[in-house]
């Protein structure tokens, strides 16, 4: 079932207000508060941090020459709090990870 969306007022760090179409997740506490966009950027930073540490492990173990991660982030409101929602992109995946090896000798295809 598609989650309902609603334009909500969001305040940026410099104090300016914008309206963002946000996805409403589940039940909400219904005080009418201007949400701070910082709550979303903080989550995005955490996601990036989490992913990068995982990818560093992958790099160490599998040594791909090139890696890219594609993720879709939607702004969501859950229990009255702003948050980021990782959504599916064009395909079926939430996270689209691409790894490339250039085929140099010695490295070979990783076994794990």
């Amino acid at each position, binding site marked *: 079932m598609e989650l309902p969306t609603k334009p*909500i007022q969001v305040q940026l760090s410099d104090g300016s207000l914008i309206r963002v179409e946000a996805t*409403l997740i589940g*039940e*909400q506490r*219904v005080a*009418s508060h201007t949400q701070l966009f910082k709550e979303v950027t903080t989550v995005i930073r955490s996601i990036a941090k989490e992913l990068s540490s995982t990818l560093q492990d992958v790099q160490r173990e599998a040594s791909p020459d090139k890696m890219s991660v594609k993720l879709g982030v939607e702004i969501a409101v859950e229990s009255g709090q702003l948050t980021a929602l990782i959504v599916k992109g064009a395909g079926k995946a939430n996270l689209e990870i691409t790894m490339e090896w250039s085929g140099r000798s010695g490295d070979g295809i990783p076994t794990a």
Partner: protein
Amino acid sequence: MASQQLDHLLQQCTVRLSVQGGHGTGFFVAPGLILTCAHVVERAESGLVDVFWKENNQRYFAEIGVLPGEPNIDLALLKVTTEVSNHPCVLFDQAVSHLDDRLYSFGYPEDNADGDPVTCSYEGESFRDNSSLLKLKGGQFNFGASGSPLLNRRTDGVCGIVNISRSTTTDLGGRAIPTPEILTQFPQLKKLNQQVHQIDKRWAIAALNSHQSTIQRSLGCGFGAGLALGMLRAAIAPFFHHLPSVDFVSSFWQGGVLGVALALGIARSNKRNRQLNRTWSNGAIVSGTLFFGIAHLLVGFFNGSFSIEAPLVAPMGFLAGLGLSIALHDQPWIGVAQVDSSQRSSASQPVVNRWGLRLMLVGLAFMLIQGIFIQFKTKGTGIVIAWSHVFYEAELSRYATLNWWQEFMTRCPEWFNYLALLDAAVVGVVFAIGMTFGPTLTTQILVRWYDILKRLEHDE
């Protein structure tokens, strides 16, 4: 009939609470105390909340007084820093809500921050974070509705406070913290709330009004009008104590019967013409005329002087009934005056003007009827009719046979006839007051009676 209904009183209890970058709803629970949800005021700077009370269009400040000991309980009690005069308070209802109870809520959601109602029904008890919540279905609670009181229309009490919406975009309902939980968290509130309602009877009266049928209200009108006229008549009776057939008791009941007849005539037919409430109601006028005229004939019949009086009394009764019905049929006014008499706090309504205007109209109607009689009758009969006006003719037509009365009439100057106009105006005003206060009076009696019954129950 427009009477003070609970939904309206509940609105008057609510306030819009604004904090840095947001708002929610709260409501008065005791003098100067506002209950809301903790998450509504969590961003309040230095603990101060801006309070807007729509009822008198004023802004106040409130400080966060008490928060519950348990952090997961979404409640906050605010104390207004300046005095708010004569605000109503909700009545807490600790009774368990029944499945499918119809509920009414009023709050200040962001899509209509000037105030918006929600109706929903009770789906049952639900649980979250070790506490129970009322689950509501069938109403749309939007952002800003948190802190709205939830009125149970079956028990006439506030059964909870809204804090969660199950969908802000559809009418999926919401959840509310039940009253027993509120009173557990703020035990002092129970006593404070009870104390308010021991003195301030607005809620009890509105609750009774909500359930009173048109027939009950009509009977109230009849009771009030009958009592007022009967008392007036009885007060005048001693001045005629030396005349035959005039005594306190008979004067009282005759005046009373006529008053009741007219009031019921107008009120009863109003029910049939409910859709015409605010326009001319022909049914009310016809019914009022018939009731009043027939009541005159009945009074004459029970006096044993039907054959003598009927030709004089009957046309007078019917004509007077017609005039009075035209002046009085407008029931919504009676309802409005009834509300105002029980609640004088509403500064926004020009109560006195409306009241004064209507009383004047009824007084004028009586005077006009009297004037018609005076103009169309001979001097002697004119005085008889004038002095007997619509309520005294039964006895006074007999007084005409007395020598002193005939002498009085022949010596009486012409202008004396017109004193009767003043007399008629007084009767008219007394009648209108009686009819206006009748329903409130009966409600008040009922409220006191319920109080006594409850106290007895409690003592047992």
